């Protein structure tokens, strides 16, 4: 381990995507998730929302993308838990963000607890979450 450990309060580099049918249809194709509320504004409106809206499972993937780009190939996502509080409406820009809440040394690196979330372009949180990851000393040396 040649670098300083992560610190409580550290912010993760964000992961951001402009969202709409281009993203959602691609995800539907790999997850067999061709559900009308994710494809058709009328179905989204019938469900009580202004437009069609994106899959919770894709928000889930964006949170994993955020964590993966931070921990690197040698790190591990140990756990993730999220609540889908607000829909990802069409044409929103969704950004996954996170901050370090706890750091625990391990023989091979650090166990890091995080508050993570997705938010829209106004900063309104869509999907609050918590995560635990392992950062390894080897990975830190490689950065």
């Amino acid at each position: 381990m040649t670098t300083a450990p992560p610190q409580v309060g550290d912010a993760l580099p964000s992961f951001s995507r402009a969202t709409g049918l281009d993203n959602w249809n691609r995800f539907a194709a790999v997850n067999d998730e061709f559900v009308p509320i994710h494809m058709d504004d009328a179905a989204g409106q019938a469900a009580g929302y202004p437009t069609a809206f994106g899959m919770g499972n894709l928000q889930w993937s964006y949170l994993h993308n955020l964590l993966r780009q931070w921990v690197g190939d040698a790190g591990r996502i140990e756990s993730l838990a999220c609540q889908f509080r607000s829909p990802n409406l069409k044409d929103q820009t969704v950004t996954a963000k996170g901050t370090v809440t706890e750091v625990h040394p391990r023989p091979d690196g650090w166990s890091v607890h995080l508050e993570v979330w997705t938010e829209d372009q106004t900063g309104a949180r869509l999907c609050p979450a918590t995560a635990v990851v392992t950062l390894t000393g080897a990975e830190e040396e490689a950065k």
Partner: protein
Amino acid sequence: MRAAIGTTVSERTSFPIDPSDIRRWAIAVYWPDPPPSAFVDEEAARASPHRGLVAPEEFNPFAWLAAREGGALDRAGGADVNRLERALGIPGPDLSFQLNGGLEAAYKERMRPGDVITSTTTLADYQERAGRLGPMLFTTTEDHWVNQAAATVKRARMTLIRY
């Protein structure tokens, strides 16, 4: 309905994971940027700490089709809001809509090309709450995935909101 809590509702086994299943998933979840090489480039992946391609942690090897589906929920098919209860042979809530309310996962072994994953899903809880759109039923299921060596891949919980 509460009497059904603890019932195993789904037992599925995947087809062997194909490298291009992993590639397509990674392309979709990173689109429009290219996905990390660990998910698409076998040569680069061999040089990584994983020593080969791995699937993103949240990859779903059961999308589209499973090699074996043995639970009541698997046989029920369809996407109606009473599907779970119909599979269990009990009256459903007869609500109009359903949403994914939240997910939890704890990961162990990574999924790799050729792996065959078996999933066992159990009904874990029912909770009724009042929501902005009226009465809501929160249904939690627990999922345990193991690979062909019986090693745990993940334990997960999903909360389905019906209203």
